[in-house]
């Protein structure tokens, strides 16, 4: 099967600002994650792919067509942006009907598909409510449903789990993983490392409008993330003197005894070693929380 996206030497400028700087990229079937800090050009990249922006130079081909000039190719695509982008004064039903009709879907097909998705996301009860009356998270669920109406072969997701509760985020991630197995191509943009860790897929890291790394989500913990920190919570307070003997640098809020401590580790392998040592020293470990490093550090390769 041909690659869904083929981008060559793409530049996108807004006045004197270079948003995308010589990007070349070919998508793979399944989930392709794009990670980068704010202002890296991730959203601009998605907008060029779906044809919202005209490239300043270079080429963007989606299934062999130029999306900015070929409107019909967007029948195979969908974009879910970080903003829910729904019409506030229309009902959920009217919004979904409007977008579905633009994809030449009949009303009954639109309602059938959308009710199925909304039911699974526990949002069907809002079907006849105006969007303006809904919470931010519910709006995002409706927007996700809208993006799935045309069963896109190429799904572009820009921070799709922003504003969602944990269970809805998990539902969307599972849905995406499952969707990627159906010979679909998904571009998933995020700036959360925590999100990346939940996928086993290709990972593109962007910074300052460039692709600085083309790797996998698994490798990010092996090679790219050189140091990180974890928060260890104890069932009962432990002595600082004992923690000092463990041999890992740590921060704590108290001077004698603590019920939690932040440890600095060099790689994910240190988690097991550290916890093993703590247990050996008779500490009762209640839980380990991963503390997300700044995504800027990851994209610098530091």
């Amino acid at each position, binding site marked *: 099967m041909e690659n869904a996206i083929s981008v060559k030497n793409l530049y996108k400028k*807004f006045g004197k600002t270079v948003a995308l700087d010589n990007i070349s990229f070919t998508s793979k079937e399944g989930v392709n994650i794009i990670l980068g800090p704010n202002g890296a050009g991730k959203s601009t990249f998605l*907008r060029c792919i*779906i*044809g*919202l*922006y*005209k490239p300043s130079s270079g080429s963007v081909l989606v299934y062999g067509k130029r999306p*900015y000039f070929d*409107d*019909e*190719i*967007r*029948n195979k*695509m*969908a*974009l879910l*942006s970080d*903003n829910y*982008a*729904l*019409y*506030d*004064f*229309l009902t959920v039903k*009217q919004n979904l009907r*409007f*977008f579905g*009709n*633009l*994809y*030449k879907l009949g009303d009954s097909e639109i309602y059938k598909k959308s009710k199925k998705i909304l039911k699974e996301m526990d949002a069907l009860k809002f079907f006849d409510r*105006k969007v303006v009356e809904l919470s931010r998270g519910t709006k995002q669920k409706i*927007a996700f449903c*809208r993006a799935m109406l045309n069963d896109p072969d190429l799904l572009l997701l820009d921070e799709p789990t922003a504003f969602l509760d944990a269970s809805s985020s998990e539902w969307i991630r599972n849905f995406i993983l499952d969707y990627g197995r159906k010979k679909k191509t998904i571009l998933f943009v995020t700036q959360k490392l925590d999100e990346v860790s939940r996928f086993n897929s290709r990972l593109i890291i962007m910074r300052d409008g460039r692709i600085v790394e083309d790797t996998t989500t698994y490798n990010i913990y092996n090679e790219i993330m050189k140091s990180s920190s974890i928060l260890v919570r104890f069932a009962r307070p432990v002595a600082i003197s004992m923690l000092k003997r463990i041999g890992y640098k740590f921060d704590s809020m108290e001077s004698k005894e603590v019920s939690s401590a932040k440890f600095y580790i060099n790689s994910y392998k240190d988690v097991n070693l550290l916890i093993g040592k703590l247990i050996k020293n008779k500490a009762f470990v209640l839980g380990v929380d991963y503390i997300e490093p700044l995504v800027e550090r990851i994209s610098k390769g530091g």
Partner: protein
Amino acid sequence: MKLNKVYQVTWKDIKETFSSILIFGPMFGIPLAFAVILPVLSLYIAVHEAPSIAAAIKIPNISAALPAFKSIAFMDYFSINILGPITMTMPIITSAVIAADSFAGEKERKTAESLLSTPLSKTELLLGKIFASFLPAVIMAVIAFALYGSIVNYLSFQQFHLFILPTLPWLLMLAAVPFLALAPISIVVLISSHVKGVKEAQQLTSLLVLPLLVLPFASLLGLASLSVSFMLYLILFLAIFDFVLFYVSLAVFHRESLIS
């Protein structure tokens, strides 16, 4: 071009416009209230103040009328030369307000991103939005003309036992309504890439449509006579002006203008 998609965009925009009485209430309520109040006011003035006003501002038609017919002459003049132009401004203002919200509103509320991600072509998008601004403005103006015409006739028949409307210049004013409504929409399309939000678009549009308001006020001040030939020339001028403006706005408009 798929007409169904044009229809869908029009339907969506009209639905949004009429989704809240707070949005469409003042936009349609005030002109329609004017269409009722002004004819009643004109009759009161015609009956009670016509001779003194005619003497003060020297309107030829009224001054030349015999004393017994001054009230009728005043009612006739006021209904056509004052109320007509005032009603003609309504489609200009209404279409400008709706179009500004339709185009700049998509940008301000960030809904353009999902709209432009669909397989909607530039022409389908533009036509859909133009119809959504054009149709309510024209329908509202026709209703306003019909309302004020009926009230003028009812009052004049009750008072003078004759119907003042319709006259040919009055019918030509009605015929000019679609041309007056189209111009502000094209102006909004032209400026849509240069504005960030609805307020900015409305302010800029109101500045640009000011020349279109010259005619009604020129008539109000007695500087223009709304004769049949004048109205025919006006419609011809507006038709050419609209065509050129519409063509330029279509050529200049690009999809990105609704996003960045």
